[in-house]
């Protein structure tokens, strides 16, 4: 073992140029794999975050969109549970009027919709009859902070509310129509004291939303409730992500195959280069297994160094990418998560493939008979 290892080391050290070339070859493969893998994962995560980062992952509503008595929803996987009461209303300011959607949110509302982050002016509603309005609506109705707005429901209920904040909800149709308040404000305007119209839930891992949603369905005892999750509503996105994952895996597999073929062919050449040495060693009495171990160790050493080098290259690539590819506001274009597990996985795959690639030369070395070398000089 030790003997084979030290001979392998010496052989590699003697042909430095060749050794470095194979290591760099492996390293490039590993770094491309790490770069593409992390990039696509980052891309997908940011896409998912943009899509469902500040929207409900699971929503509970009444079948006929009427209100229902609230009940407690609990699960360790839920990060935010928002009880909501919403309905259409007519908003009248001093200068103009508009059709709006009033939505009253319970405590977790800010957490789920990330409203504080989207506030362009003012503060979050905390008192009864405080509201925040969308940016478009604020412009149309020419509202300022602390202005009073009159809301009238279809059933002609009216209430005067105070604008305490303006939010940019990023989507025009929402910006032009949303008025947000605390839950009691909306409940009293719509005269549904203890009732709500929906429950919005965010979960820790967005991809478990469908199973959690199924669990919820079976737990809910109230009849006529409808539970839907984001996956049902975003099938196109999901199939897009899936396609991306598959192409990312394809790229990685092909990179891997080319690395394996590269190592295998170079090692196959070295076994020819070293066949004289192997023959001499066999004449001096190394067992056949030791002869093949020498090449397995060469593969292993090349794999380990190539992988380490590749991980460093890959991290360098990712680092420079995150440093240079930035949005105008200075945030990363694609936020990348340095997934240690994936990085180690890529490195281990490279080591394993280098080892597999060295099986062929190892087998040839095992078969080589000393007499061939001695007879042919």
């Amino acid at each position, binding site marked *: 073992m030790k*003997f084979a290892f030290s001979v392998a080391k*010496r*052989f590699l*050290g*003697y042909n430095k140029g060749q050794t470095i070339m194979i290591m760099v070859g492996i390293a490039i493969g590993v770094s491309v794999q790490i770069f593409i893998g992390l990039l696509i994962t980052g891309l997908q995560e940011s896409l998912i975050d943009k899509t469902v980062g500040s929207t409900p992952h699971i929503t509970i509503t009444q079948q006929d969109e009427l209100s229902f008595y609230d009940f407690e929803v609990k699960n360790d996987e839920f990060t935010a549970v928002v009880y909501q009461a919403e309905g259409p209303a007519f908003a009248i300011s001093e200068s103009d009027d508009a059709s709006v959607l009033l939505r009253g949110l319970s405590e977790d509302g800010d957490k789920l919709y990330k409203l504080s982050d989207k506030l362009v002016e003012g503060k979050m509603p905390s008192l009864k009859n405080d509201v925040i309005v969308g940016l478009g609506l604020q412009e149309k109705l020419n509202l300022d902070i602390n202005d009073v707005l009159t809301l009238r429901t279809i059933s002609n209920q009216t209430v005067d509310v105070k604008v305490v904040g303006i939010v940019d909800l990023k989507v025009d149709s929402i910006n032009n129509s949303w008025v947000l308040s605390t839950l009691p404000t909306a409940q009293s305007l719509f005269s549904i004291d203890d009732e709500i119209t929906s429950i919005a839930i965010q979960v820790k891992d967005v991809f478990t939303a469908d199973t959690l949603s199924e669990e919820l369905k079976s737990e809910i005892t109230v009849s006529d409730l409808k539970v839907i999750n984001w996956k049902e509503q975003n099938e196109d996105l999901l199939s897009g992500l899936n396609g991306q994952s598959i192409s990312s895996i394809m790229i990685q597999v092909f990179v891997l195959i080319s690395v394996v073929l590269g190592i295998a062919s170079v090692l196959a050449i070295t076994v020819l280069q070293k066949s*004289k*040495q192997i023959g*001499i*060693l*066999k*004449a*001096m*009495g*190394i*067992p*056949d*297994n*030791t002869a093949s171990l020498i090449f397995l160790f060469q593969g292993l050493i090349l794999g380990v160094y190539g992988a380490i080098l590749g991980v460093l290259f890959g991290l360098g690539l990712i680092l420079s990418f995150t440093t240079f590819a930035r949005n105008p506001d200075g945030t990363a274009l694609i936020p990348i998560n340095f997934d240690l597990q994936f990085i180690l996985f890529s490195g281990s795959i490279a080591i394993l493939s280098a080892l597999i690639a060295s099986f062929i030369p190892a087998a040839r070395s095992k078969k080589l008979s*000393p*007499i061939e070398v*001695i*007879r042919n*000089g």
Partner: protein
Amino acid sequence: MDNIVEIRNIKKIYGDKVKTQVLFDLNLSIEKGSFNSIIGQSGSGKSTLLNILGTLDRPTDGEIVINGVNTKSMNANQLAKLRNETLGFIFQFHYLLPEFTALENVLMPYRIMGKKIDDKVMERANELIELVGLSKVKNNLATQMSGGQQQRTAIARSLMNNPSIILADEPTGNLDSDTTEQIYDLMRKINKKYNTTFIIITHDQHVAEKTDRIIEVKDGRIIMDVRRNND
């Protein structure tokens, strides 16, 4: 005297379709501690015989007994161990490992045994290097030595595991006559000092005449076998 090597009815036939018989029913006994030469024309079968003797090649038929052990039923790994422990080889080409220094090449048979290299072993290797007169170049890579130095390194290497038999196939075939003389004197010295058995193939009549026994091979048969006393 004890026989250290015995071959019985050795045949060697090369080729599957076109068969060429190279050795014909050879029988030979070599005495322990003797200094022997094999001569004969090129193509007569000397190397084939020596390689079979050294278990590097298998005979088509016949038996080889080394140190009282019949090699016929031994597998490749058992033969490798036997070679490592009891046989030393010196070839026409030095066959040193170019990746290693002279000293490391000399130590190689010992390392192949899988034992740890301690001070005593190191001392022995240095002694052998001293014996072949290479102390100055012992840390040179094999490729950084002259032909004579390389061959002397190969001799030192063949002695490392204290083998009972050394097989040499035209060990001076590539060397000038002065160096040839030195190498033979060296082998003779080793033969006397360690009582190592030598079987040396040579085409040099002058060299052969200095050995204890001359075996002449012609067309795969032993046609002459003379013992002499040249002390």
